[in-house]
């Protein structure tokens, strides 16, 4: 099956992709494609600045809607620098932990309180 290219620059309309709201716009589009089991490449060509806040909503929250297997089989990325790939990897690992253990926050709170 041919992969469909979704361009982050086109969705956000800018090379600066830092806000959670912009990330959510990307999420909504990617979600539509994965729901239909379409294979997509999310291209970050011409994106010069990313934050974890943007990636959390754009990609991290996909793990709340789909299984890891579905995401792995349908979604790939391109056009990211080495540092941005590392940031995305961290966002993905954090998202997997977050949805695997929804009570994690309460647990960390208890740890601080002793």
């Amino acid at each position, binding site marked *: 099956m041919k992969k469909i290219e979704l361009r982050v620059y086109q969705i956000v309309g*800018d090379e*600066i992709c*830092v*806000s*959670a709201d912009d990330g959510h716009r990307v999420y909504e589009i990617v979600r539509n494609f994965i729901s239909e089991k379409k294979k997509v490449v999310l291209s970050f060509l011409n994106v010069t*600045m*990313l*934050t*974890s*806040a*943007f990636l*959390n*909503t754009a990609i*991290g*929250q996909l*793990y*709340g809607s789909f299984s*890891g297997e579905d*995401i*792995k089989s349908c*979604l*790939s*990325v*391109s056009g*990211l*620098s*080495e*540092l941005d*790939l*590392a*940031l*995305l*990897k*961290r*966002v*993905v690992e*954090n*998202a997997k*932990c*977050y*949805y695997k253990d929804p009570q*994690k*926050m*309460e647990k*960390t*709170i208890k740890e*601080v*309180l002793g």
Partner: protein
Amino acid sequence: MEISLPSIDNSREGYEELIALNKSLEDSFFDDIEINISHWFSANLCALLGCILDKAARCNNVKVSVPSEKTRRILQKNGFLAYFGYEKIYDYYDTTVRYLRLKPNEERFFNEYVIKELLRKRKFPIVSDKLEKKIAESICEIFVNAQIHSETDYIYACGQFFPRENKINFIIVDRGLGFRKRINSRFSTNFSGVEAIKWALGSGNSTKQGVPGGIGLAILKEFINLNRGKVQIISDNGFLQIDSQSEASYNLDEPFAGTVIHMEFRTDDNNSYILSGEIGCNDIF
């Protein structure tokens, strides 16, 4: 009312002085307030002073006097005094980082400001692209954190570049909910200011519901450690300072309703920021 500020730098005592000023102005209405800056004043702290005076100016006539020509010129160069009726001065030496008040939704303008005011300075040393990107990323993460969590009207920023000392100071201030209120409200806890800041620095710790988060501050902390820089965080009555050698926390005499994050980056950082295990596009999910 005339208030003379003592010497104020980026120390715990300096922040305490400004927060005491904030407290003393809380009950002033329709008053003439003159703030006299006659001693040392760290230029980047214009962000905190600006945040404090901005609120006071909503229902008072606020003036700022700066008798020392040297200090006055610096605060004219970084644009702070332009808000108080002084002319702007061109910064020939290009060491100031402009004082800025932004609405939380102006993240793109903020990013351009970081690049233009900080990273493209004539005297900014030639650093690796990765170091430059890490500095910009850290600062933008903090701005976006304030945007998402604080519910603030404005976000204030200012900095100062010290070419001979190879460092940049940059500060972001908001007058929003602050860590303590946000965390205690979300989890029905009774954290102190310091406890709230420490929790927020943990990787993955976030008050957001339904969406993962909590990486921005952890990234900043890790980068500061590698870069041998420093970060100071003030929220409510909590003060936390972290550098590559140590971590110190204190309860402040007076709380500050909002959040102050001061970052100090080293520009003589020779770390390559090449990652130990290279990550490919196929290894992400």
